[in-house]
C-alpha cells in the first residue's frame, strides 16, 4: 500500500451486537433530518453508541455537531420539522416511531434530561416546589401530602440547602447552582434509569461546575443510573466519563473508553480539542491554541471528510472520500484516513 493511509478494519454489525448485550440505551445508525427553508439538513448522520446502566458516556462536540439533537431524539423532543430514522433502543424497547403519548410515559420516568441554562429552564412564574411536584405526580400516583414529602426529599437529595424554604421560592430567587440542582431534582423525580445532562454545567462558574458534576456522579452511583453527559469540554469528559464519543458535523468521528482515548488520540479533531483545553502548566501569555476555521454548514457538506478544511493532517484523499467510522483498535473507533500518531501521518 503505497499511499500510506491506514486501512481500518470494518467491523461487522452483528459482532457489535453481541458485544453490547447489556446496554440500557443503544443507538444504531441514528439519522435526524430537518426540513428547512433551504432544503433538507442532516443534523445527525449514522450515529451509533450504547450506554449500560451505571456507566457514563460523554458526547463531545462543538455547537452544530449534532450532540444535542441526538439526545433530543432519544427523548422524542424534536420539532415537527425533524425526521428520525435508524434505531434507538431503550431498555429493550424501540423508541423510533413511537407516538408522542407513548414517549410521554418514558419521559421523566425512564429517561430524564437536564438542560444547559438553569435560568431559562425553570418556569419563572411557578414556585420551585410546584415544579418538582409536577414532575413527581406526572408519573407516580401520590396524593398531595406524599408528593410534597417526596419533593422535599428530592431537593435534599440534590444537596439544596434549606430545601423546605426553597420549596416555596421562585426560581429567580435562587443562584445558578441552586437552580441547576432543582433541575436535577426534577429530572430524578420519577427515578429514571437514564439521565442525559445536556451541557448541564456550561452556564455555571467553574467551582459550581465541579460541585454539580460531583453531585451527578454521586447520584449516579447511588441510584444506579446510566448517565450521558453532553459537552464541548473534553476535560470534563476525562474526569467523569467511562466512555467518550466525539461528534463532528452530525457524525461520530472518534469513540473509545476514556482511558484508551486519552492515551492514544487518533482523530485530529479530537487532538485539537484536547490541545484547546487551557492548562496550568502552559507558560503565561502564551496563545491558547484554538481549532482553526468554523464548524461546517450542515446544509452544504463537502463530499469528503467534513473536518478536512480545518484538519492539519489533510490530504487530497480526505477531500474526495469520506472516511468510514471503524474500529481500528479493539474498543477504539475513529473516522480518519490519516489519524494521529500513526507511522504514516505527515
Amino acid at each position, binding site marked *: 500500500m503505497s499511499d500510506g493511509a491506514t486501512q481500518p478494519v470494518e467491523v461487522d454489525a452483528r459482532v457489535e451486537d453481541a458485544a453490547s448485550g447489556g446496554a440500557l440505551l443503544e443507538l444504531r445508525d441514528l439519522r435526524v433530518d430537518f426540513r428547512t427553508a433551504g432544503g433538507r439538513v442532516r443534523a445527525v448522520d449514522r450515529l451509533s453508541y450504547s450506554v449500560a446502566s451505571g456507566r457514563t458516556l460523554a458526547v463531545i462536540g462543538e455547537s452544530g455537531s449534532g450532540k444535542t439533537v441526538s439526545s433530543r431524539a432519544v427523548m422524542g*423532543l424534536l420539532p415537527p420539522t425533524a425526521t428520525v430514522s435508524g434505531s434507538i433502543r431503550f431498555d429493550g424497547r424501540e423508541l423510533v416511531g413511537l407516538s408522542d403519548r407513548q414517549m*410521554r*410515559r418514558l419521559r421523566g420516568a425512564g429517561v430524564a434530561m437536564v438542560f444547559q441554562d438553569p435560568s431559562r429552564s425553570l*418556569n419563572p412564574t411557578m414556585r420551585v416546589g410546584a415544579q418538582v411536584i*409536577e*414532575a413527581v405526580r*406526572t408519573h407516580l400516583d401520590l396524593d398531595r401530602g406524599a408528593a410534597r414529602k417526596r419533593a422535599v426529599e428530592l431537593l435534599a437529595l440534590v444537596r439544596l440547602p434549606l430545601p423546605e424554604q426553597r420549596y416555596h421560592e421562585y426560581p*429567580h430567587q435562587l443562584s445558578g447552582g441552586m437552580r441547576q440542582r432543582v*433541575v436535577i431534582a426534577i429530572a430524578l423525580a420519577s427515578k429514571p434509569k437514564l439521565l442525559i445532562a445536556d451541557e448541564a454545567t456550561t452556564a455555571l462558574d467553574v467551582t459550581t461546575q465541579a460541585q454539580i458534576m460531583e453531585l451527578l456522579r454521586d447520584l449516579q452511583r447511588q441510584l444506579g443510573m446510566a448517565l450521558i453527559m453532553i459537552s464541548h469540554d473534553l476535560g470534563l469528559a476525562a474526569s467523569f466519563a467511562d466512555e467518550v464519543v466525539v461528534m463532528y458535523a452530525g457524525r461520530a468521528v472518534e469513540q473509545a473508553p476514556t482511558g484508551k482515548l486519552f492515551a492514544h488520540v487518533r482523530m485530529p479533531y479530537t487532538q485539537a480539542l484536547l490541545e484547546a483545553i487551557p492548562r496550568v502548566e502552559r507558560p503565561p501569555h502564551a496563545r491558547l491554541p484554538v481549532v482553526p476555521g468554523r464548524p461546517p454548514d450542515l446544509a452544504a457538506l463537502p463530499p469528503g471528510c467534513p473536518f478536512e478544511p480545518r484538519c492539519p493532517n489533510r490530504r487530497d484523499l480526505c477531500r474526495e472520500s469520506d472516511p468510514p467510522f471503524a474500529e481500528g483498535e479493539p474498543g477504539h473507533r475513529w473516522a480518519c484516513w490519516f489519524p494521529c500518531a500513526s507511522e504514516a501521518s505527515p
Partner: protein
Amino acid sequence: MRSPTARLIVYRIATAIPVLWGVTFLTFLVVNRLPGDAAQQLLGINATQQQIQELRDKLNLDQPFLTRYFDWLGHALTGDLGRSFASDQSVTSILNERLPVTFELLAYALIVSLLFTVPVALLAARKPNGIVDRITMATSMVGLSVANYVLALLLVYVFAVKLEWLPAIGYVNPADGIWPFIKSLTLPAISIGFPLFCFYTRLLRADILEQMQGEDYVVTAKAKGVGPWRVLARHALPNSLFGLLTVVGLNIGTLIGVTVIIESIFSLPGIGGALLEAINNRDILVVQGIVLVLAVIVVLANLITDLLYSVLDPRIRYGRAAS
C-alpha cells in the same frame, strides 16, 4: 425598609402626576384655544351684542387664557366642573348619571371577549397551522377588518329587526330587571367585543406560541412527561397572560373612543352620547369636563395595569433573595 415593589409603585404614581397635569392642560387647550368667538357661536347669529357680552362675562372669556385655565383647573380639583349651557345641569352630575352606563358596557364587552379569547387562543396554539388555528386566524382577520359601526348596524339588522331577539336601541337599568338590562347591552357589547376578541386572540396565540417554541422551561416541562394541554395551560399561558394584560390596559383609551360610537348607534345613555350632544350644542364646559375625566380614567387605567403587572410578576414582586 422599602420593598422594591413599594418603590416601584411610588415611582409609577409619581410619574403619572405630571401626565395627569398635562392631560388637563391639553384638554383645556384643545377645547378652548380654537378660532372663532365662542360666545358668538354659542348664541348663534341672531344674538345681540349685549347678550354676547353677557355671556362673555359669564364665561370670563375676556380673561387671558392661562387665567381661565387655572381658574377652571382649580374648580375642577374641588369637583366643580361647571354647568351645562343647554340644560344647566352640573357637569359632575351628568358624569355621575352617564359614566356607569359606559362602564357597564365596557365591562360587558371586555369580559365576554376575554372569556372567549383564552380558550380559543389555547385551542389554536395547540396545533399551530392546524385546522382550528387556520380558522381562528382567518376569522380574526376578518373580524378585525370590519368597522364596529358597520358590525353594529348589521347586528341590529339581523338580531333586532329580522329576528327580533334583542332590542335595537335603548337601555334598561339593572334595577328594572337584570335580564332585560343584559339584553339591552348585548348587541352593543358584541359590536365592541367581537373585534376586540379577534385582536386579543391573535395576540395571545402569538405569545403562547412564542413561549412554546422559544422557551427552555417548556422543554423542561415536556421532558418531565407533562401532557401537551398541561404544558400549554399551566406553563405557557400564565407567562403569556402578562403580555395580554398590558395590551388590555393600554388599549383602554381606544376602547373608550369606540364606546362613544357604539353608544350613539344604540342610543345608550352613556358618556359617549353626552359628549356628542355637548359637542353638537357647543357646550364647552361639558365637553371639557367629559374629555378630562375620560383622559384621567385612561391614565389611571395605564397606571393600574403597570402596577398590576409589577405585582403579578413574581420576578418583580419577590426580587432577588440573598443567595
